[in-house]
């Protein structure tokens, strides 16, 4: 009789860091403007009059508490939450709060997807998007290096920027394309080197043109989706990255996947 009962191995599972960069600027605290004479159109899951930040908080809790994840995502994906307004803060899982990155313990920033208990986000201040992206790039590189040093199979980190506004400088002035160029160049270079993939998602009010400066091939405007649907799209897309795809391939895949979802949604509505 064998000493061994046939079964799977231990602990050599592939990991994939996913960084969610969430806009918590003041505009996220304002309900969508209601055009005169008719009620504001709200995507499903975002009740009229509800500030986007509340809808985002509800969606985060529901998504991470719920059964929205597959065994593959639960085993592989580890999430880091980065909130940006006038400051850039990261979610320290051990302290259960958002803290400036220099105060965070590096081993508590990435949390397995089914262990994430997101904090309650509050909206205030400016939109320091470039600072958030620069911080996230460094966190992604650092996590990737750490996992490689631990000889853990690891996929490229995926960074998702979710915003409803336009990047502002430290004084609250809107940034112009020239001011975004340095960050955009570092994003592009990192993607070409296979260090990470960055995708931007604009919701109602987002400045599409400026987002396209930051990530020319990687901007989705998802004004008609609820935050829960956006999180679905985001994690399902992260799941579809394979190591042999370039960043451009992945951006095209995400766009096509979203278009397909949209077509399916319209078809379902048509026949409802």
């Amino acid at each position, binding site marked *: 009789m064998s000493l061994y009962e*046939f079964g799977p191995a*231990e602990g050599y599972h592939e990991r994939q860091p996913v960084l969610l960069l969430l806009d918590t600027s003041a505009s996220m605290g304002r309900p969508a403007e209601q055009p005169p004479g008719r009620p504001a159109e709200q995507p499903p899951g975002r009740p009229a009059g509800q500030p986007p930040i509340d809808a985002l908080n509800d969606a985060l809790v529901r998504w991470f508490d719920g059964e929205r994840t597959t065994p593959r995502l639960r085993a592989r994906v580890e999430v880091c939450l980065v909130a940006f307004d006038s400051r850039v803060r990261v979610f320290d899982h051990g302290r259960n709060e958002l803290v400036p990155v220099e105060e965070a313990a590096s081993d508590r920033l990435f949390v397995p997807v089914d262990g994430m208990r997101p904090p309650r986000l509050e909206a205030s201040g400016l939109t320091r998007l470039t600072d958030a992206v620069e911080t996230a790039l460094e966190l992604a590189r650092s996590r990737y290096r750490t996992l490689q040093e631990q000889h853990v199979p690891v996929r490229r980190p995926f960074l998702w920027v979710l915003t409803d506004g336009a990047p502002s400088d430290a004084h609250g002035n809107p940034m112009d394309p020239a001011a975004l160029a340095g960050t955009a160049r570092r994003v592009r270079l990192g993607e070409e080197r296979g260090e990470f993939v960055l995708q931007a998602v604009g919701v109602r009010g987002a400045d599409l043109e400026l987002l396209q400066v930051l990530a020319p091939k990687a901007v989705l405007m998802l004004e008609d989706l609820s935050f829960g649907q956006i999180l679905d799209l985001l994690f399902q897309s992260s799941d579809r990255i394979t190591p042999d795809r370039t960043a451009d391939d992945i951006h095209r895949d995400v766009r096509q996947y979203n278009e397909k979802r949209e077509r399916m949604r319209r078809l379902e509505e048509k026949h409802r």
Partner: protein
Amino acid sequence: MIVAGAAVQGTGHLAAGRGCQDAFKAADLGDAVVLAVADGAGSRERSALGAHIAVDAACRVLAEGIPDARDAPETWTRWAAAGGARLVAEYLGAAAAVLRATGGGQPPSDGPAPDAGALAATVAAAVVRPPWVAFVSVGDCFGTVLTQGAARPGPAMEAARTGLAPETAAERCHLVLPPAVPGGPGPVFLSSPGAALRVRSFVVWEPELSGVVLATDGCTALSLDHPAAHGLPPEAGPVPSERFFCGLAATLRANGGDAEPLRALLSGPEAARTGDDLTVLCAVLDGR
């Protein structure tokens, strides 16, 4: 020898509407067995076809002229190296013929060969003639050998004293053909430039050989332990799981070679953690 294998469509492929792009094939020659597994490149449209061409080519090429079990080591190593080169040539020839026949290659027969990249696949093959095993590999598939020594005198004497059944020496597994290093360069495919120069070939002489297992790279998480699970530092690299490899061999010996338990594991919740296709093929010595 018991030969058993299974290939299962990865859950990531299932979610994306893609079929299984792995393939496996074995040729049982009586006192020798040729095993081959192949992994079609996920991003190439016709790579599943390429994987099937690869295992077919491996089983045909490596079934020819296998050295005798009593031949010298250099005879085996030379044969394995030549076999690797012939495998690449055979694959490229077959791929070119398929592309021409199906409109994938426009040039006439005397023109340059069509690009076989559309059929990109990695492959690992093993020729088992105990106590020898010859390995030939292009890309990141991996392989282990199993060994099982005779019963040690100590436990047998103890068994005689206690009247309990004598204990046989535990079967062990050895990762002789490791998978790609995490974070390393991407895999070499049979269709990659200079593939013939990038073939890995080697032979193992193991008088206590009890089995050989090949697997595609999707199986790493399912069949390899992290070194920390054995109290080893990370740089020790992955350790073949005895639970997986030795458990598989014992299961196949017990059920007469039915691969259903293997298929069930590859289709189960633990395997769903990876999205990749999963293929395992093995030859287990059955004591005859």
